[in-house]
């Protein structure tokens, strides 16, 4: 019953077939990630950029899925954390003259702190109200940035320190960061779902009242998930905007993010680990092929 709990809650007795695939899964994954990490040597800058977008979308969608698909925490304002993390990164890098990639952990930390501050307020709202509350948070950040000259106000900011890196290196490092984000998130989540915490999560997903009565501290689990997801989403936002080199409040805090993330999760499969990956591929595939017919970009 350990494996596949996230993918298929209904198990049959014959686990031997699954056990074999599981034994092969890790080596296969290592080889795949190893090959993928060589991409900067065989892909052009434009394709590399698209891959960054895909991996970041997958990472963020995984976190959204963890919250929405498992913990029953619906967030319609993930752009609050995407934008906050990215702005934290841009500001830190520009202000301290820091390499933006080194500022990534700080961006994650700052986003975790801000999520920790707002969590007690947001968690006073239930269900759909919580969802819209996170959207209000994104609006607060957007308007605050619009009115803050240090953050470039409406015109936004450019990453000044990126010029110190050579173009190929910069693109490659951005790519590796994005790859690490997607692979890291999937790795941690698949580990999590096989653990004690995963069982608690599945219990919360299926019936949080019953989970509570069986001794799962539902509120605490939800808050920890919310704050750690915010941190990951903040870092992912940072990588995304390093890749773009420029950030503006209307783009970074745009509700388009929500639309894309929800699309990716729902099309791929809510409450499954493979869902966001499949959804991300379908989304970007559709966008790239249908772009000539007027599909919008992020």
């Amino acid at each position: 019953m350990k494996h596949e709990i996230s993918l298929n809650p209904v198990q049959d007795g014959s686990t031997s077939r699954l056990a074999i695939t599981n034994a092969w899964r890790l080596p296969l994954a290592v080889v795949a990630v190893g090959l993928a990490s060589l991409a900067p040597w065989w892909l052009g800058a434009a394709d590399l950029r698209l891959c960054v977008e895909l991996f970041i979308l997958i990472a963020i969608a995984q976190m959204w899925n963890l919250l929405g698909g498992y913990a029953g925490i619906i967030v319609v304002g993930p752009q609050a954390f995407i934008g906050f993390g990215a702005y934290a990164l841009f500001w830190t890098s520009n202000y301290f003259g820091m390499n933006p990639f080194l500022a990534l952990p700080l961006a994650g930390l700052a986003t975790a702190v801000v999520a920790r501050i707002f969590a007690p307020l947001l968690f006073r709202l239930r269900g759909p109200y919580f969802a819209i509350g996170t959207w209000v948070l994104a609006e607060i950040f957007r308007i605050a940035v619009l009115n803050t000259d240090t953050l470039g106000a409406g015109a936004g900011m450019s990453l000044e320190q990126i010029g110190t890196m050579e173009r190929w290196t910069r693109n490659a490092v951005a790519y590796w960061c994005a790859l690490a984000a997607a692979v890291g998130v999937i790795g941690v989540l698949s580990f999590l779902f096989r653990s004690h915490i995963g069982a608690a999560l599945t219990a919360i997903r299926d019936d949080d009242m019953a989970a509570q009565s069986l001794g799962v501290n539902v509120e605490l689990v939800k808050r920890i998930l919310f704050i750690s997801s915010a941190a990951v989403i903040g870092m992912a936002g940072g990588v995304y905007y390093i890749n773009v080199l420029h950030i503006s409040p209307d783009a970074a805090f745009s509700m388009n993010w929500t639309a894309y993330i929800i699309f990716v999760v729902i099309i791929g499969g809510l409450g499954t680990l493979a869902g966001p990956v499949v959804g991300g591929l379908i989304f970007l595939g559709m966008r790239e092929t249908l772009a000539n017919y007027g599909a919008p970009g992020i």
Partner: protein
Amino acid sequence: MNMSGWIEIMIGGLLLGMLYALFGLGLSLGFGVMKLINLAHGDLMVLAALMSAVLAGVAGFNPFASLLVVVPIMAVVGYIAQRLLLNRVIGTGPLPPLLVTFGLSIILQNAMQEIFTADTRSLQVGAITSDAIVLGNVSIGTFPLLVALVSLAVYVLTDAVIHRTRAGRVLRATADDGATARLMGVRDRRVFALSMAGVFALIGVAGIFYGIRTPFAPSSGPERLLYAFEAVVIGGLGSIWGTMLGGIALGLSQLIGENISTGFGPLLGHVVFFILLLLKPEGLLKKVIK
């Protein structure tokens, strides 16, 4: 700032707040009756305003006169939307209704942008929007006053329908306990559809008055949804007069913020929303529609 300046801001905030209360009423009812939060609420307001703009352009309708056409159309759209779409997601937990109405919001925004371009437009009603009533040193905009009176009238009417009519009794029964109401012969799906027709009619009224007061674009829906949402939450879930109070609190915060620094208004509104959430998590008036 002098005394009369502050009085003007307070009155202006009160009147603006009563418009926000009108935004919030439909949302409040939708939640009270069906536990449904419609994320396309703001976009539907923009749609109503655009319909009025089209009527003005094509047939020379005054926006006030366009109410007579737009509001019934919205009601029919609401009935159909509930029957075909929203009834399917009621009672399925919080996620499906949010996803469906979020999708509706995105589709509406993009469709409106495609048809009407991203341009900002406004509804023209002539001199009334610049008129003011002057009392001593204090001047009050005639149009905001009119909007506030309309809002008040709509609230009184809604309250009367809910509490004094047979239809209202059925509505309250369904809201309280759908299963039992069904046992008593109430066709709850139909009640929901009729309520949604009422909610959409309210959206139509709110949308047109908002369009006269503020220039709007196909993308301005989400902001309006947030104002409506904040009015509902500040006031207390499921209480319609609470929504009125919530709207006023929001309007006052926004105008005070706007006078502290330009562009600060909506921000202060959102911040006050969070502060009130901290101080009074159950809302200003806590009472379910009963």
